[in-house]
């Protein structure tokens, strides 16, 4: 899937079983969260489902291709590269444990559910919305785009943001970042007729 190097603990079989001792479990939980965050950052995974598959990954423009390739995996019922399955040591994490990890991540603001009802997948905040916001603001200022109207597409796909960390950012995550800027009174969102966010003016 990528050049991401899993930490050593990933090849440690007990890591894939929920530890009965509460303290050990907390440490294990934290390790899992760190692993998920660093893995998603390295692969730019925006959405992770509870099978450990990246439902949305990399540059969002190539989304269609990645989804089709992933859906095949889903049909098989067995993920090839799911993060919660380690074929090398023949271990997999139980769905219930995964859900607990997700719950903790949502609590920590490391992730948020796609919808309130659907808790099978989460958006991963491998950067916090505040961090994304700072990156975007810095980019706006360094490229002299203060006060101009930008479309969401321009921020995530424009030529000017080509080498930026947020190039190809998922629109939903971009929205959370922009909302941070709105709260700081640094941005104003523009909506289209359907009430969807179409553009943003950042000062």
């Amino acid at each position, binding site marked *: 899937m990528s050049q991401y190097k899993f930490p050593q603990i990933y090849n440690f079989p007990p890591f894939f079983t929920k530890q009965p001792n509460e303290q050990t479990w907390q440490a294990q939980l934290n390790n899992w969260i760190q692993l998920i965050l660093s893995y998603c950052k390295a692969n730019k995974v925006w959405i992770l489902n509870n099978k450990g598959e990246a439902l949305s990954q990399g540059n969002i*423009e190539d989304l269609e291709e990645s989804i089709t390739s992933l859906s095949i995996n889903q049909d098989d019922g067995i993920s090839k590269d799911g993060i919660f399955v380690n074929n090398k040591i023949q271990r997999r994490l139980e769905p219930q444990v995964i859900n607990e990890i997700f719950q903790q991540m949502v609590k920590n603001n490391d992730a948020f559910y796609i919808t309130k009802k659907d808790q099978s997948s989460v958006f991963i905040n491998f950067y916090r919305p505040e961090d994304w916001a700072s990156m975007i603001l810095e980019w706006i200022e360094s490229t002299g785009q203060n*006060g*101009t*109207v*930008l*479309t969401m*597409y*321009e921020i995530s*796909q424009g030529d000017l943001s080509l080498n930026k960390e947020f190039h190809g950012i998922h629109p939903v995550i971009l929205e959370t970042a922009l909302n941070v800027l*709105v709260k700081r*009174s*640094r*941005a*104003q*969102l*523009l909506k*289209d007729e359907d009430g969807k966010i*179409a*553009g943003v*003016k*950042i*000062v």
Partner: protein
Amino acid sequence: MGNTTSSPKITAQDKAILQVKLQKDKLLKYQKKSTLLIKNETNQIKACLSKGDKTSAKIILKRTKYQENLLENVSNQILNLENMIQNIEFKLIEQDFLKGLQNGNEILKKLNNEMKLDQVETLMDDVNENIQIQEEIDQVLSNSIVGKDYEDEIDEELAMLEKEEFMKQGKQSEQSGQQSKDNNELIEKLPSVDKLQDIKQDEEEEKDEEPVKVKQKKTALLA
């Protein structure tokens, strides 16, 4: 969303630019989709040809050609929109520039009104007068500090010193004539002890005086 008063305001121009930009984005997306489609279709054509299915290959090729045609149109349209956006943005900058110029002009006018020419002229005359007075005062001050009486005294003293020096020189020339006589007298005087003591005392007095002078000099320097 953005209920706070300090948040950036959206103007009509912003909305217009956004509309244009959204159109551009749509075209860009369409461009991407078309290139993808063309890629897929060329692959299909190759697959058909390898099977020997020439007729379907031809049909697909027709579609591809049509797509390519559209794609070129789209590219041109994107270029147009980009130009449009650039023009609008530049016009906005020009507007700001004009506003800046206007503001500057108004300020200049106000400042010029505050400074009437007559006022400036009288002011300049005043300043000139004052400068002249200042110069006069300067002269008076520099004169009175080194008072004239004082200078006269200095001149007198200098003349006196010069006279004395002149006199001494005259005496010396006389003395040189008398020296032979004097020597004789000195020799006669030498044996007497009393007189020697007198001379010694004189010398000591001179010696005493000298250090005092040095000290005075030093204090002067220190001061």
